[in-house]
């Protein structure tokens, strides 16, 4: 396996990307391409990059260590390298289950949760593979419950909870039909219809709702649904994903 490391801009990519079917990875300020065969002379000439041989084990090419949020929480797959973050969450994903930590909404929910002092329970509604619930448990929130309507998600979430040595009550539940479990903090990384259902069920036990899974033009209606709560903190991404902490 050959590795080509080079620097360049969009104009250079115009030349080399049509010649590199596997594409290029970004590694810091540099671009890296891999190939099982020697790179074409045209690519070497255009990039002026350095070629070296690397082991053919593609997993070794995962240069990252998952994501690190606020310098505190690392979320990574079992295949990725360990980070130096003080709290490490290792999650696996299967099937259609959501929540590997790669999605910006998951990361923003963690950032918002980190700003709260752990004091009570957390309910992760639409927990996917359990990532947010595991983060909450590792931060010291208890008890932690998680529900999702996808059975395989709960199956994997249980495996992930065991992998991370945390105690979480996980159950299959369809929030379109079932009443949501309530706690001092609700984590609701889900589309607007789920927020409507949860907002209608919220009672005095709930002090904070961390809302995500919505885009900018859905914010107004979702916030309005959580009557009695105010936006305490809002985060957003360039591609319009929004996360809010609503508090009362």
């Amino acid at each position, binding site marked *: 396996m050959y590795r080509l490391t080079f620097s360049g801009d*969009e104009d250079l990519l115009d030349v080399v*990307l*049509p010649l590199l*079917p*596997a*594409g290029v*990875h970004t590694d810091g300020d540099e671009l890296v391409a891999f190939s099982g065969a020697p790179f074409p002379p045209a690519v070497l000439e255009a990039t002026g990059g350095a070629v070296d041989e690397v082991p053919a084990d593609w997993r070794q090419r*995962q240069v990252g260590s998952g994501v690190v949020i606020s310098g505190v929480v690392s979320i990574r797959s079992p295949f990725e390298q360990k980070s130096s973050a003080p709290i490490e969450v290792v999650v696996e994903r299967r099937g259609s289950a959501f929540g590997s930590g*790669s999605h910006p909404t998951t990361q923003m929910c963690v950032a918002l949760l980190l700003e709260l002092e752990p004091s009570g329970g957390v309910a992760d509604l639409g927990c996917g593979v359990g990532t947010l619930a595991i983060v909450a448990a590792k931060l010291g929130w208890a008890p932690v419950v998680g529900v999702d309507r996808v059975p395989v998600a709960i199956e994997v979430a249980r495996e992930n909870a065991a992998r991370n040595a945390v105690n979480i009550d996980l159950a299959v539940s369809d929030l379109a039909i079932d009443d949501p479990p309530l706690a001092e903090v609700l984590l609701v990384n889900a589309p607007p219809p789920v927020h409507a259902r949860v907002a209608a069920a919220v009672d005095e036990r709930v002090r904070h709702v961390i809302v995500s*899974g919505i885009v900018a033009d859905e914010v107004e209606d979702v916030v309005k649904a959580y009557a009695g709560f105010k936006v305490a903190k809002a985060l957003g991404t360039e591609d319009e994903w929004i996360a809010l902490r609503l508090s009362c």
Partner: protein
Amino acid sequence: MDRAPAELLSPDRAAAEGAALGQLACELPDGGLLITASRLVEFGARAAILLAPGLFRLDLTPQEETLGLYPRVLCGWEVDWRAAEESWDGYRDASGPAPIELHGTFGDQLTVWIHVLSFTERDALATHFVAKAEIRPVATAP
């Protein structure tokens, strides 16, 4: 127009310049160019999936739960891209995956429909893409 339409809609040129990508191209029966390609792209890599020489290149960067799209314009025309947003993030749609759809117009000369299907292989930390672009002169666009 900075290039002759006949050259831009040449399947031979599209196949030749996209050969390293395994791209196929043919002429559409009612005039225009069809290009197709399929590719396995590792998470985090930016890879060209479609190349319409002299017009555009579409690059994709799959992540486990997100997908970056980079339509790169390769001509001097004013270009307008529009997406069918309901097909944008399939995981929010309980009815199942649908092709991502992009529509582009190149000045008042050409119109492009792009469809991209994706299948994520988490064990391989990669995503399979199947993509096609239909490029037609505006006068013959359906």
